[in-house]
């Protein structure tokens, strides 16, 4: 997995690529933690280049969402989610916990 991030005026964008599994989820968590450590809790995640996410990756998502939504200080939004990953999010009941946007522009523009 590779991961890049960008900071915009009203949110940060994280773009992982490749597989998010038990081996790589810690790296994913760290990228998100770094953003929260700056006091930024509005985070868009671009899933367009993610090939696979396991429950270890979902665990990172839900824990980050809990931290971001605390005190109403922000939230995690997902964008450009490939079909198979979307069906994993649906099975896990995540589609009610995260706003999911068609594309990154709409996600970043929503913050």
């Amino acid at each position, binding site marked *: 997995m590779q991961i890049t991030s960008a900071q915009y005026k009203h949110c940060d964008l994280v773009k992982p690529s490749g*597989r998010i599994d038990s081996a790589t989820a810690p790296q994913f968590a760290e990228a998100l933690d770094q953003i929260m450590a700056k006091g930024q809790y509005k985070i868009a995640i671009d899933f367009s280049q993610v090939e696979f996410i396991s429950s*270890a990756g979902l665990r990172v998502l839900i824990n980050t969402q809990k931290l971001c939504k605390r005190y109403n200080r922000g939230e995690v939004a997902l964008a450009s989610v490939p079909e*198979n990953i979307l069906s994993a999010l649906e099975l896990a009941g995540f589609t009610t916990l995260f706003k999911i946007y068609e594309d990154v522009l709409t996600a970043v523009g929503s913050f």
Partner: protein
Amino acid sequence: MEVSRKPLIVHTAVFPARYESLASISQFIRQAAAQAELDSTGVYRVDSAVDEACSNIIEHAYGNRVTGNIECTCQIDDTALTIILRDYGRPFNPNAIPEPDVTAPLEERTDHGLGLLFIRKWMDEVHYEFSEQGNTLTLVKYRKPPKQ
């Protein structure tokens, strides 16, 4: 186990029980799934179930000790792709694990238990066997009826 099936193709590989093996296991599984002519959703779901099962073996059965192996066998016959995972770690009773509540509000949502959910929902058959000789998890994904 269903002995009536005649395996046409069998692949076997042994991987060290470490998270770093997951990517190689995935490659091995995806190759077999492609050979079984699963569609991309089928491939993804088998990949996912195997990843969750192997992650559990590494984390729970072997408790993150770095010495064990996972033996992985893929069988493709007329009707199904069958994946057999063997480990020699701690046994457990999968029926004792409740399904997570995927409708709970965020604050009550636990961050555990999704792995078994993917395994259960995304495979057509799941069989666990625990014995002195090791633990065997058999995951079956039916193939589409072959084209006439």
